[in-house]
């Protein structure tokens, strides 16, 4: 029974996607919606991403330093470990999980409210494809902006680590040396590929749960929660699959 429900849900998700990526009725209006979503969902997330990145960068540095307290391990290895943790996992995955909560619930509740207040029906009666008009700009905005957000997160995470070193753990010179040690640029590409996939999953899954709400305010809340849980699970699973494909 669970399997049938799951397959049916997956089918409806694919149908939604097939209706989403269609030719817009008017490029200008879609462009306006794109920039509105870019600002609302992307740029507005900068603050929370910045704060979290700086503090997590600092904490990772302190914890790594604590765990690598060994006279045989030079201090600069701490910075190397921090850099790899931030680039490979913290910025692309953890920040995406945070965005799944912030952006995912926003998308699901906005679309859900539009559904229960018949605004989606109004679009349809006007001859506008509501899937394309409401979902496509959000997906494109986040797929394009999240990599920028993640690069900023990586940079600020490292700055956080530097600040932790500066405030007394070990020499900042060692930290900078460690940051430059055995740098592999492919790791950044890997992180950005993951980010793009995660951004697509967050927007499309959240939109799916919001777009098909049935009922009223309670169901909007329930579906917003489902959207966050499902996109978080999808991110975790996709993270494993992508890591297996791209790094092994």
């Amino acid at each position: 029974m669970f399997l049938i429900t799951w397959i049916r849900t997956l089918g409806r998700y694919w149908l939604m996607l097939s209706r989403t990526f269609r030719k817009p009725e008017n490029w200008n209006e879609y462009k306006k919606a794109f920039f509105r979503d870019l600002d609302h969902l992307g740029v507005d997330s900068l603050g929370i991403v910045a704060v979290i990145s700086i503090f997590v960068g600092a904490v990772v540095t302190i914890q790594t330093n604590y765990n690598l307290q060994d006279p045989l391990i030079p201090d600069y290895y701490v910075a190397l470990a921090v850099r790899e943790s931030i680039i490979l996992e913290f910025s692309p995955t953890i920040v995406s999980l945070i965005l799944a909560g912030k952006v995912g619930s926003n998308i699901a509740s906005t679309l859900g409210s539009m559904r229960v207040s018949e605004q989606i029906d109004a679009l349809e009666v006007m001859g506008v494809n509501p899937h394309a008009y409401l979902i496509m700009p959000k997906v494109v905005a986040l797929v394009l902006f999240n990599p920028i957000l993640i690069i900023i997160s990586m940079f600020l995470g490292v700055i956080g680590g530097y600040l932790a070193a500066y405030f007394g753990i070990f020499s900042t010179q060692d930290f900078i040396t460690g940051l430059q040690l055995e740098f592999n640029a492919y790791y950044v590409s890997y992180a950005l590929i993951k980010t793009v996939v995660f951004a697509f999953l967050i927007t499309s899954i959240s939109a799916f749960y919001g777009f098909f709400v049935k009922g009223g305010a309670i169901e909007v809340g329930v579906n917003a929660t489902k959207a966050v849980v499902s996109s978080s699970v999808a991110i975790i699973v996709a993270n494993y699959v992508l890591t297996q494909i791209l790094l092994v």
Partner: protein
Amino acid sequence: MIEVRDIQKKFGDTTVLKGITTSFRQGVTSLIIGESGAGKTVFLKSLVGLHGIDQGEIFYDDRQLGKMNEDEQKALRTEMGMVFQGNALFDSLNIEENVIFALNMFSEMSAAEKKERADFCLERVNLKGVNNRKPAELSGGMKKRVAIARAIALNPKYLFCDEPNSGLDPRTAILIDNLLQEITHEFNITTVINTHDMNSVVEIGEHIIFIKDGAKAWEGGGDEILHTDNKAVTEFVFSSELFRKIREKS
């Protein structure tokens, strides 16, 4: 003209519309009346294609809705205007943007022409100076009028209204009713209105369809309904003391 032939709609095992056949003429205000849960909204949503039907045919001036491809349906919908029960105004847009939304999507008008059209439509529904306000800042009656302005912005051939005066005080409700009838005559629109408000029936009902348990139980003119002997209709129409007195006097 809209022609409906023997339409049937099911939700699971429940048949909500049971073979309704009727037609709606151009320039005439047609009212669909019936108790709550009789199937009026499903009927209206089936007419505009928001609900697919399980049986029957719907023709818009000889164009069959069920046989249209996606592009033809989109083209037909630009000829439709709809006023929803809860107004369905876009919260994120201001009043003017709401009114010209369809114009932005489908017309080649310049910004000045669109602004002129928005002003005309808002003036037509007796609203001035609200262009830059958000829907949340307006009263229920004003929102309803904005919804009507939006529905007529693209010069529709067909206008559909789902309970246009529900939740409004009697005076505003009559204003909305009269406005809809004036617009129907002025622009020669095929107007279909869902209502369970008997004031609307008396005020603007030119062609009335009574739906009971998903089936058409009666059809006739505004004058005829006050004198009909159809038991289902009389039970519904004259359920209030006021209308029983009106009937006795007429």
